[in-house]
């Protein structure tokens, strides 16, 4: 099938729209995740969101919403637990990661028959997203982009030097809670595209690619979204033309681009 033929297909058009929105927000939030060194946090929230999917399916509402709500709940709870118990974030993330996937599978076992939703969230299913799903992705996407555009200086300041921000009178707890919420939503939307297992490929790698070339923080924020969009579009088109899974294709191509860009930069 040629690219022109593929572009005419409605499911592919939905995938392009969803892919562009998810790529932009994952690029922007990925910069903050790298600044905050929250890679493992993102990985854990992605896996834990499967429990939200299972809860959504069991209770009969949109699993994407269930995933987002559960991810947001965890993103806010884990820092609170770290502060109020003697458990380190590393311990908490390890516990959450190991329990959450098991809990999701157990909950889904109460539903009759094979559960394709689990597989679609594990490996991504942007090609099967509906117009209502696109609507949900777009609404969240606009909110995240709007918050980042409006508050990027404040978010950067808190992430870069939280102690200084606190002394300047910023309620860093609120800002960190906002960041955690935005991370959670972005991670779940990314999972829809590349799957829970590969979400870090889209969240982190575009930032690492751009970091080699950016000469300032501003350039970094400007470079990351187009790099992320380019990787997603390339992966999307390649997967449909060759007929291979989309999520893993995006992850592999993004990883390959990162590798080459690093090697070229070193020369």
């Amino acid at each position: 099938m040629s690219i022109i033929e593929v572009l005419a297909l409605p499911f592919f058009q939905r995938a392009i729209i969803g892919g562009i929105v998810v790529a932009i927000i994952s690029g922007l939030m990925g910069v903050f995740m790298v600044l905050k060194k929250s890679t493992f946090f993102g990985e854990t929230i992605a896996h834990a969101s499967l429990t939200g999917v299972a809860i959504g399916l069991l209770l009969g509402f949109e699993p994407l919403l269930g995933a987002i709500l559960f991810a947001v709940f965890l993103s806010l709870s884990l820092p609170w637990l770290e502060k109020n118990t003697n458990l380190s974030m590393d311990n908490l993330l390890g516990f959450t990661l190991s329990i959450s996937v098991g809990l999701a599978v157990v909950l889904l076992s109460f539903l009759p028959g094979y559960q394709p939703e689990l597989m679609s969230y594990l490996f991504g299913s942007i090609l099967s997203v509906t117009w209502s799903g696109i609507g949900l992705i777009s609404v969240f996407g606009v909110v995240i982009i709007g918050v980042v555009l409006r508050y990027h200086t404040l978010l950067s300041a808190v992430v870069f030097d939280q102690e200084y921000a606190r002394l300047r009178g910023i309620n860093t707890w609120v800002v960190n809670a906002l960041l955690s919420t935005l991370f959670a939503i972005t991670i779940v939307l990314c999972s829809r595209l590349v799957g829970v297992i590969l979400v870090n490929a889209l969240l982190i790698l575009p930032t690492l690619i751009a970091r080699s070339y950016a000469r300032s923080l501003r350039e970094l924020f400007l470079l990351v979204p187009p790099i992320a969009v380019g990787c997603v579009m390339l992966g999307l088109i390649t997967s449909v033309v060759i007929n291979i899974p989309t999520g893993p294709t995006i992850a592999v191509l993004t990883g390959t681009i990162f590798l080459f860009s690093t090697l070229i930069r070193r020369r």
Partner: protein
Amino acid sequence: MKTSSLKQKSAAVSFSDVSVTYGGDKLATENVSFTVPAGSLTVLIGPNGSGKSSLLKSLLGIVDYTGQIQIFGQEPRKSYPQIGYVPQRFSFDPTIPITIQEFLSISFLHCDTPVAQRPELLMKSLQEFGALELVTKQLSQLSGGQLQRVLLARAFLHQPRLVILDEPETGIDVEGGKSFYELLFRQVKQAGLTAIIASHELEIVSKYADQVVCINKQLLCSGAPKQILSSKNLASVFGSHVGMYVHH
């Protein structure tokens, strides 16, 4: 400045029976009480692990403490926006390409200065600390001494009333440390600020400080440099093997 006239000035900062304990049982400081007169330069001296940094961190609300601390006559939290702080160690990810201009621009938090005037204020602050030529460099490209100057410029960005520096000579060579302190003290004196510095540079302390406070878990002595920096006092603070050597 003589101790008697120092005592006549109102207290900018007061510590009353301040104790800092880590993890419930590791004592950092115990029942420390002293005041820092307004417009004076107070230096905390003591060996490593004596509690100097812990005292400064308790003042800034970074660590919990028992006792009472007041800044400008009120609880510390209300005075934070009037404080400029340079930490002992400033850690950041060196792979992030943030320029000095961006680093200082994102530091304009809760600031009344109109946005249009901020670039000029930023440049002025860098110029005052001999760091103007660094404005387009990335944070990761700076030497230890250059980074300290930039952190100092940041601390003065909001025109503070109180500046707190925790061993600012860390990571700087001897000559760099001298010029750094001279710049700092000139700015402090010109603006009539109150400054509290934890330092190991006793020669510089003796030259510029109005008050020296000796800490080794507890308050051992405090007063004018000429009174405090005697061999007997230094021995009680640092141990009998310590003496003062002048850098050439």
